């Protein structure tokens, strides 16, 4: 056998190294205070994806979940410092060491002000787009359109309430690409959730441009489920940054100074 005795880390890890500099903006420590968005309606969509696609997208610091999957989170925010808006975040499910995380691959918001808000609270790589979340008698519909083209259009139907501990959906913390002290890095966005209601249903994907997942990603074929939740979202100040090329167990995690106290 060729393995190293006492090894802890797996050999299965992402290998993406070719992202353009444009995708890794300098880290701006603008997020210095906690902001709460109340009664946010979330449409959470999970789908499996080919492992090879995940490995091509994830940087070496991150391990794909088994099976590989990606998530789309659509949000309808009724009230915020920049008014009502809707936004969507797409990401690949992954692990930083043993921490469940999501590498953000695309984000969309309905106005420049809301895009700026999300940039200030986690440096989401946001594009202004037409994001829609609508409830109907049969479920919840969400879509993203850019330049008049619908790039994501998904429905969760046959919703069933989820009770007890299961209602506290384990949304993974997003990791957003930034450049930090000259290194390609991943800023973790810490969001606390208070759950008001949760329901789970079956997915129908009417359209999905795989480019939102990654430039060479193939069309996912297997849905996992869709979830509708109403939550309060508490965006905390920036806390941690991962070196994109170094696993956290090997020293790739940097805990930031307490920005709120600074």
């Amino acid at each position: 056998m060729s393995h190293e005795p006492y090894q802890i880390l797996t050999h299965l890890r992402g290998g993406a190294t070719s992202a353009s500099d444009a995708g890794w903006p300098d880290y701006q420590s603008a997020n210095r205070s906690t902001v709460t968005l109340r009664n946010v309606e979330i449409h959470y969509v999970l789908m499996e994806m080919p492992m090879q696609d995940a490995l091509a997208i994830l940087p070496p610091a991150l391990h794909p979940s088994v099976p590989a999957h990606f998530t789309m989170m659509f949000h309808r925010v009724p009230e915020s410092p920049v008014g009502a808006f809707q936004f969507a975040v797409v990401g690949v499910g992954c692990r930083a060491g043993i921490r469940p995380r999501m590498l953000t691959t695309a984000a969309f918001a309905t106005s420049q002000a809301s895009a700026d808000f999300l940039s200030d609270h986690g440096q989401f790589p946001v594009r202004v787009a037409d994001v829609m979340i609508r409830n109907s008698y049969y479920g919840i519909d969400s879509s993203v359109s850019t330049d008049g083209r619908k790039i994501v259009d998904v429905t969760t139907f046959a919703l069933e309430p989820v009770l007890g501990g299961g209602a506290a959906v384990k949304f993974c913390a997003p990791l957003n690409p930034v450049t930090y002290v000259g290194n390609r890095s991943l800023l973790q966005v810490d969001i606390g959730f208070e759950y008001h209601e949760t329901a789970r249903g079956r997915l129908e994907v009417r359209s999905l441009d795989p480019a939102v997942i990654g430039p060479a990603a193939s069309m996912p074929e297997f849905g996992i489920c869709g979830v509708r939740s109403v939550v309060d979202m508490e965006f905390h100040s920036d806390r941690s940054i991962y070196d994109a090329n170094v696993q956290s167990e090997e020293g790739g995690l940097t805990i930031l100074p307490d920005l709120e106290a600074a």
Partner: protein
Amino acid sequence: MQFGLIFELSVPRPFSPGVEQSVFHNSIEQVRLAEKLGFSHAWCVEHHFLEEYSHSSCPEMFLAACAMVTTTMRLGFGIATCIPEMTHPARLAERGAFLDVLSNGRAEFGTGRSSTWTELGGFGAAPETTKRTWDEYVRAIPQMWMQDRFSYKGQGFSMPERAVLPKPVQKPHPPMWLAVTAPGTELDAAERGLGCLTLSYGNVSKNAKRFETYRKLIRTCEPVGAFANEQIAAANWLYCHEDSRTAAKKGEAMVQSFSSMAAQTLEISQAFPSSNYGALGLLGRLRADPDKAGDKALPDGLCIGNPAEIVNTVKEWESAGLDLLLFMVNAREVVPQSEVLASLELFSREVMPHFSARPSIVAPYRERAVHVA
């Protein structure tokens, strides 16, 4: 107190030729030695698609091999996954009985329902129905063993009258167990007269309360089989070495290796919000959040240390009411086989005598079991 081994058959990458053979045959060698050393049980789990973490997709085949190199060890088939999309209950009854025949009446039968999307999703199973179908399975399987012919009409499965064969050697049937992880599952075990096999790895005081609850409730149970199997077993880790620091270093490497693999799977509670998977599922302890300060250290109650330290730990479990400790002795081969065997030998030599000169090995289950008239 009795001692046994439990196997996940975790395999390190890269999956080069021979690596799975090495893990499987190392494990069989551990079983062969363990019986000689006085260990009374060998269990093997059922898992599917769990890369590195567990390649144990056909545990009864592993246990059949163990049966051929042992004569007295009890052989635990499980946790057998009671999900229609994975296995028809008649197939589980057949496989359990087959092992019992091959081993001359040494089979134990553990039941569960899986807690990962990795497994359930791979078979297209519906997570929201797993508890219901598990409940049907554990009631049907002992009837399949005891009745000449069996027929059934239910929600999770139905079948016309058939003879489910072979019949087990143990009469009326092998002892049955339930994997207990999420809080409250011990109640499910007790209500049905099933043995309580906890997979929470450590945390003596937390488990002691659950054991007490189980003991109280099972006294008024309605067994799903012919008898109540009032026993409590707990999975644990074993690395025994004369030097405490060496034991801690290697034991921790072993636990962390396995934990890191457990964390890569996609839990139901993460992927498929559901009312019947509210708490952390399988091996929740191994999926602890490292960002929570209280979750960072290894839990108490692990059998990692020098013999004196492990004696103290086992005594704590004994005081908590445990009947059987089932040890994981390696993970992804992070500990060389020679050191695993040395750890078993040292445990047998220095720890076991504090609890029993030599355990009777084959527990007289039906004598201990609470027969319900």
